[in-house]
């Protein structure tokens, strides 16, 4: 005769139907008269009912997510941090070089980390650098104040141009886009980067002038891992640009990027 304790220990195997017929019978006899053990069986059957929702392979898959995905995520994050530092370098120089809301920077800034960070700005760059890393796409230029007394002269080897960066977002969709604009020969040179737009989307950049003209400035397919910057030009001079629009294949707006004066 099995005791309640022995019955209970066998109850798990019983709920899963793994006991020999003799033992199963003995337990069933016991359950017919023991309410407490009966309640325990019901509880176990409830747990066991979940087992049927998954397969052995499912459990394997859950235990072994591909580590390379983590590596790629961390790499992507590192790249974004580098980009944050690059922007910060621009912002650090912007802090002393802003004239009338225009950022003076150098044309090779994005490919030459830190080249635009003037020594005069080094002291102030530390705390804001961390901020930029936490929020890589933050609008770094918006609150910059001119400080003519400490303005360094751009290095002679670098062509100094006045460029501005504009950011826009579509909070409903989680899309963001940043357009950097530099005056070029007979128009404006543009670099666009997007964030959060689904892969497979064909994005088109439209430049809208202050008098309402729309100048298509090319399109590209957004891909996974696409940290590439889309480069384009528009014949509109920078001062005539009211906003940029990123639209999809069907002309539906993805992100609007206003140009602040």
């Amino acid at each position, binding site marked *: 005769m099995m005791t309640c304790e022995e019955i*209970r*220990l*066998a*109850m*798990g*195997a019983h*709920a*899963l139907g*793994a*006991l*020999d017929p003799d033992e199963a019978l003995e337990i069933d006899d016991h359950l017919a008269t023991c309410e407490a053990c009966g309640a325990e069986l019901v*509880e*176990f059957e409830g*747990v*066991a*009912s*979940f*087992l049927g*929702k*998954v*397969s*052995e392979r*499912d*459990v394997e*898959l*859950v*235990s*072994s*997510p*591909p580590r*390379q*995905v*983590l590596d*790629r*995520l*961390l790499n*992507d*994050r590192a790249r974004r*941090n580098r980009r944050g530092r690059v922007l910060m370098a621009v912002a650090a120089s912007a802090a002393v070089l802003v004239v009338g809301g225009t950022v003076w920077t150098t044309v090779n800034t994005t490919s030459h980390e830190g080249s635009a960070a003037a020594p005069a700005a080094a002291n102030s760059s530390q705390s804001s*650098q*961390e*901020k930029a*890393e*936490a929020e890589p796409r933050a609008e770094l230029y918006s609150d910059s104040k001119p400080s003519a007394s400490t303005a360094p002269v751009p290095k002679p080897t670098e062509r100094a141009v006045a460029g501005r960066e504009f950011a826009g977002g579509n909070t*409903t*969709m*989680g899309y963001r886009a940043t357009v950097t604009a530099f005056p070029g020969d007979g128009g404006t040179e543009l670099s666009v980067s997007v*964030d*959060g737009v*689904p*892969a*497979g*989307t*064909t994005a088109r950049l439209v430049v809208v002038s202050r008098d309402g003209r729309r100048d298509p400035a090319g399109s590209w397919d957004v891909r*996974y891992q696409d940290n590439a910057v889309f480069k384009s030009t528009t014949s509109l001079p920078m001062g005539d640009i009211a906003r940029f629009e990123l639209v*999809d*294949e*069907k002309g*539906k707006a*993805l992100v609007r990027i206003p140009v602040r004066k």
Partner: protein
Amino acid sequence: MSAAGTADEELVRTLFDEHAGPLYGYVLRLTGDSGRAEDVVQETLLRAWRHPEALSDRPIRAWLFTVARNLVFDQHRARKARPQEISDEALAVIPADDELERAVESWSVAEALAALRPEHREVLLEVYYRGRSVREASATLGVPPGTVKSRTYYALRALKLALEERGLAP
């Protein structure tokens, strides 16, 4: 690396550790292709990392599954009928339906099982998934039948707790 950079890395690791397993399983079942599944998991976690605000007011697992599913279907549609039918569906705007809820639940069950101690998981695999009797499992596992029984008992107890932790009450 700065403090902000480290915190960032921490968030990425946490997202991966807590969700990549179930998410990968779910996406692999949808795509049947491990390479594509990896891409979708990566993109989904990246979005979660970039849009923490989207995660604040809803169950994160359901959000991740929804984003992943949309990515899979968007890709599928884009593949089938470019360029006319490129989807511009929003990030996770499709409300969770029954199918999605069931998927979230099943993968939480798989996760609960994976979280058990190895000997508990092993005994459940033997007696439930491989349909072995106590006697057979005893031979396979090399432990006495009494141990198979008690392990099954404690495994189900532990599983009940693990399910409850995931909001699944037996």
